[in-house]
């Protein structure tokens, strides 16, 4: 079973627009990480946000975390064609052993 669920499943935008994708999870977490995966490639780590943090920035990326709603969002500003990829959230769930739980991902297409 997968703890995190990304929304939407697929997103298509024009280059230069902002892209927002969401992640919802079910139980309390220690932290949440966002990853990018290009087709047929490995996962690239983007950002880690801890449960006591509400917002983090890294370049064109902005991540928010709302533990009361058990949700996180990833905003990519001024998107580029190279941002086309699948984006996954991974949750480190409290008291559940040693794994990260991934959702099924959001497939982002940025049209040049």
């Amino acid at each position, binding site marked *: 079973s997968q703890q995190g669920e990304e929304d939407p499943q697929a997103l298509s935008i024009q280059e230069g627009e902002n892209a927002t994708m969401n992640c919802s999870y079910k139980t309390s977490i*220690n*932290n949440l990480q966002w*990853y990018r995966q290009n087709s047929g490639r*490995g996962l690239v780590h983007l950002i880690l946000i801890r449960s006591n943090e509400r917002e983090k920035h890294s370049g064109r990326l902005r991540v928010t975390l709302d533990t009361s709603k058990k949700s996180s969002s990833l905003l990519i500003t001024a998107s580029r064609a190279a941002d086309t990829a699948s984006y996954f959230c991974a949750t480190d769930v409290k008291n559940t052993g*040693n*794994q990260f739980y991934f959702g099924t991902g959001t497939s982002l297409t940025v049209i040049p």
Partner: protein
Amino acid sequence: GAGVSQSPRYKVAKRGQDVALRCDPISGHVSLFWYQQALGQGPEFLTYFQNEAQLDKSGLPSDRFFAERPEGSVSTLKIQRTQQEDSAVYLCASSLLDRTGEAFFGQGTRLTVV
């Protein structure tokens, strides 16, 4: 050479064949994870090592799957008597300490069982 390295990148195995997948984590990283990713899905946890100790193997789907990390660095995931449902991308990740820190993934090994 700072990243997690996996080999081979691609492996085609005949059903019933044994395979071994290798992971070289980032030097000095204590934690190592193996994940399995089916097409169109998110990665699913297989097993976790802290140094040479396999602390969690709850995700291994059957006793045909075996992982080791004998010296606390390189890890090998072995699949015996492969079956078609084993076809997937196998991802390895490492993190400096435990799972509460950033985990860095390799490019994965795409296994196809024919």
